């Protein structure tokens, strides 16, 4: 049996992280968690994940910065990143805008909260 893929979840809200963890684990993945951008980078350094689900709005180091750092390093730039934005349904806008998303180097972005099947589908497609 093939080893389970490892997904790293980074978000500053523990409840949110737990909820996403349940969804991701239901898809048959191992899950590692971190609670801000800095912790996320440390977790990557400790054990390289197969994919990162990264929240944009976080203290210490936000998602964009963490994403940029990961894409700078040749070690980690291949890891697919799905950015999560609090902009509900991309219908309304708060701090981060469409433009930020377009300029970001992340592979994908999804609005928060994420619909379980859609998240699992995106993870699956980026892992293949």
């Amino acid at each position, binding site marked *: 049996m093939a080893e389970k893929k490892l997904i790293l979840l980074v978000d500053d*809200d523990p*409840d*949110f992280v*737990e*909820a*996403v*963890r*349940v*969804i991701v684990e*239901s898809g048959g993945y191992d899950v590692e968690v971190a609670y801000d951008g800095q912790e996320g980078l440390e977790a990557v350094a400790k054990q390289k994940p197969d994919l990162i689900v990264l929240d944009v709005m976080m203290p210490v180091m936000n998602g964009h910065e963490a994403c940029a750092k990961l894409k700078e390093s040749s070690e980690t730039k291949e890891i697919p990143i799905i950015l999560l934005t*609090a*902009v*509900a*349904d*991309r*219908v*309304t*806008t*708060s701090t981060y*805008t*469409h*433009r930020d998303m377009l300029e970001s180097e992340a592979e994908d972005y999804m609005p*928060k*909260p*994420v*619909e*379980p099947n859609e998240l699992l589908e995106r993870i699956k497609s980026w892992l293949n």
Partner: protein
Amino acid sequence: MDEVQVLIIDDEKVIRDGVERSLAGKNFRIAKAGNGEEGIAMIEANNFDIILLDLMMPGIDGFGVLEWIKEHKPHIEVIVITGFATVSKAVTAMKEGAFDFVGKPFTPDYIRIVVDRAVEKIKLEREARRLREERTLTLEAIQNEQSLLKTVFGCMVEAVLITDPQSVVVHHNPAAIKILDIQTDPVVGKPIAVSIRDGSVVQMVQEAIGDRHVVTREFAPGTVSRRYLRAHCAPVISSGNDGQKILGSVITFEDVSTHKEIDKMKSDFVAMVAHELKSPLASIEQMIYALQVNCQYEAASNCSKLHGRMTVRTRDLLRLIENLLNLSKLESGTVVFNLERTSGHEIITDILEVARPQAEAKDIAIDFQPCADDWWFNVDYDHMRTAIMNIVSNAIKYTPEGGSVFISTSVSGGFANLVFQDSGIGIAKEDLPHIFDRFYRVKGKATRHITGSGLGLSLVKEVVEAHQGYIDVRSDPSHGTTFMLSFPVAEVVETLH
């Protein structure tokens, strides 16, 4: 004038009767006295207007009586009768206050002429007195009015300036100097532009005078003064016999800084509360999703149905908060629009892609017919997307299953027109004027199961207007609703036909 009271004082009965006959048949009441003493006694007891007085009498003579009259009853007109017809006596009498004289012998006509003249004089004097009194009263009233207005004017908290038709200040109150930070001294007599440097104030005055209507404008701090001001400028129009005439203008400035401050506090508070509500709700929604993951084996159970509703309601709440947040930001003017050149057809296509599943679930056909020419407009992508998305999702929400939504565009006169037409339940006439009001929701049987915050369309309107656009709505409860949006276009690329 009522009956004229005439007294004839003469020692000769012939003369007395002769004068009486001359005046008979006219509007006179005539009394007679045979000597000076009797005459004076009668004058004291009655109100006479005119006295015909013989100068030469035994006892107190005419001069004595005249002196007495002028001292005690100066308003009585005295006509002297002199037997000598000597001018010198008559002149002396007139110097002492007699009105005229009649020389003996006299003709009845002559007496009548002289007496009539005296009557005329009395009438004129009375009229003059009446006018004098009236004038005094009017002046007093005007003065009272003036001091009242002056006090009101002086006490007013609002700044008031009055100009003539050429925009020269003719009057102002103390508050004007204070509120408008005016440095000019004096302000009166100079064009308003000298005291208020802001060009739009001058323009406002000219507009009010030129177009003859009230102009209202707001001035942010730093334009006219350090305060936030709301100004009203009204033309002063006199409607005389020769048509309407512009006399000038009255400009009032109200200091609304405090209102604005409170308004901002309100917006900030709403923004803060909304922001704080948002993140826990987002987590709750995510946890509901997670619960559903573990519940999928019970797909047909109540549990699953309730989970579904929980998700919907939480999402509505979240959207309400987002809308509230955005509205308060738009209102407080803190939103910075990142304008980018955006393809009109592309943004609609993007939105329809997201909206389609929602429509398909209700078996609603979405038909998008873009015009032949491609066009671009300068908009903040996210805000514009939100606005149009709200319109589209309303169209789907308020259209029953099996209905249709028709979207088309056209370009004319530098504007792009977007039409969103649904076959939905429509909006009743009485609701139509309110649909852009905040928290206004059409209540009724047809809308009972449709959730929403009542903020969507107010947000749409704010966004559309922030982009110099227009929004209009037409609705017919039996045919559906049509929203029309217009925006200035940045560029049109005509496709070759």
